[in-house]
């Protein structure tokens, strides 16, 4: 067909036609077509899993609220699902969780931030090369190990200082949860601080600022949203922490703000029920889904807040 359009170039056209076969795919085209489908399948699995989890969580929660009034769940101050009279007020578990989380954040945010400032502003390259991997190892320690660390190391120390405290207490577990999330606060804050352009630091140094002044008045404010985001993520991580609190904080749902008390967190309650011989289909069994859904909503909102903050800090400079 083309030959008609270009009368003079017959030999060239023939050449092109001869070459045509090289445009055919000589390799295995089945591979090329099936691979994307397979990869999509892999991506879909994780999405479906999430959807499935959320579905089960909320249908079971729905069934639970068929038996227990929602009003009792949010208004009662007692959580006693395993003995009569059964009461399902979420507040004791919520306060236990919050107590642990607040203690953990009081430990992790100042220490993590200080470590991040050191790593980002002061540490010579060689020191950084050693400390960062150690922090990452710390983040990889199984939480059950931290749990026993709390029970067999932290608690005895607390009991030496305060002899009246029981073996299971919120303080010990809270401190150790805090230690567990230090690497997270440190590493994310350090990323945010390292992302502050060098030119900003130079500008401040050139005005006669000391290293500490640059760190505190230029780098930290410039990285502030990132630091806040890391703290929120750490907060949400502390809320969801399970093993440490199960091992070291006790199993006493109690509406209290006293760190020396034995308490129970939402996660620890779920563990207690799932490990015990609570029959499937009972109200007690259903209650773990209601607690799980509460937990899910809290961490979900916190993660969204953290992401929003992290997005904002990118626009700061």
């Amino acid at each position, binding site marked *: 067909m083309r030959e008609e359009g270009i009368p003079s170039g017959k030999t060239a056209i023939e050449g092109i036609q001869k070459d045509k076969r090289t445009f055919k795919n000589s390799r295995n085209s089945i591979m090329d077509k099936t691979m994307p489908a397979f990869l999509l399948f892999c991506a879909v699995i994780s999405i479906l899993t999430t959807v499935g989890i959320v579905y089960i969580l909320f249908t079971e929660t729905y069934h639970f609220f068929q038996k227990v009034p929602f009003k009792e769940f949010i208004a009662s101050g007692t959580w006693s699902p395993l003995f009569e009279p059964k009461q399902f007020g979420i507040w004791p578990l919520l306060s236990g969780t919050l107590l642990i989380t607040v203690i953990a954040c009081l430990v992790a945010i100042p220490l993590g931030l200080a470590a991040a400032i050191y790593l980002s502003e002061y540490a*010579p390259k060689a020191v950084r090369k050693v400390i960062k991997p150690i922090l990452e190892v710390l983040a990889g320690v199984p939480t059950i190990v931290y749990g026993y660390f709390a029970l067999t190391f932290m608690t005895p120390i607390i009991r030496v200082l305060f002899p009246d405290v029981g073996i299971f207490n919120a303080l010990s577990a809270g401190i150790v949860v805090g230690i567990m999330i230090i690497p997270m606060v440190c590493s994310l804050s350090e990323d945010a601080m390292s992302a502050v*352009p060098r030119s900003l630091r130079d*500008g*401040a*140094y050139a*005005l*006669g*600022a000391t290293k500490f002044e640059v760190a505190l008045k*230029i780098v930290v404010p410039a990285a502030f949203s990132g630091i806040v985001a890391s703290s929120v993520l750490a907060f949400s991580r502390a809320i969801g922490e399970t093993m440490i609190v199960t091992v070291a904080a006790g199993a006493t749902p109690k509406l209290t703000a006293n760190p020396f008390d034995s308490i129970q967190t939402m996660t620890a309650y779920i563990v207690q029920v799932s490990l015990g011989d609570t029959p499937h289909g009972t109200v007690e069994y259903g209650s773990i889904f209601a607690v799980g859904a509460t937990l899910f909503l809290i961490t979900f909102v916190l993660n969204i807040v953290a992401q929003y903050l992290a997005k904002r800090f990118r626009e700061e400079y």
Partner: protein
Amino acid sequence: MNTIIEIDKLNLFYSDFHALRNVSLEIPEKAITAFIGPSGCGKSTLLRTFNRMNDMIQGTRIEGVCAIGGTDIYSDEVDVETLRKRVGMVFQQPNPFPKSIYDNIAYGPRLHGIKDRKKLDEIVETSLRSAALWEEVKDHLKRSAFSISGGQQQRLCIARALAVEPDILLMDEATSALDPISTLKIEELAQELKDRYTIVMVTHNMHQAARVSQQTVFFLNGEVVEYSDTEQLFSNPNDQRTEDYISGRFG
């Protein structure tokens, strides 16, 4: 003209790299001195020696004397922060802090202990006026420093440097990221400022050096090839290499 910066047989090493070789110079007070030369010739390195910004680069070693106002700034009794208060610097890229225009200017004075609001207001206004920016920003000092144009940001950075009352202003290719009109404004500004401040500028732009400066230093491979009055250097260079460079044969 009085000499304010005196450099004698200065050698600077970045680890193994010999960045400045036996540099000796005398820089006059209240005038503009331009450093020219191809990339990597050491002109910025020498500039950053004057406020000891090189200190922050690990492995930097300095031999010889670099004296400002008669004091060797590398001697032990010199306080680096005080030195940098006296020797201000403006960088290649405008680098305002992520703060308001006002807080950018007030940052330096606050650092050095001025807390009185009235005094700060006064400093902000004088500095912005000196940097020929006051009229453009006086009605929105509380706005972010990023809300103004690149040229204005660079003048803001000059104002910020002036706010701590330096004697010397170092400009490290301060116009290379700016458009021609903003560049012209900065050049005019430099002309005005030279009556009150000693200005040392590094520039890639030979025309700029010729337009603005009174003294020009030509660097090549870490050495000073030629140092003389700007007019003399551009019209009648002594060294063949200078002539080759200014006539565009290399660099």
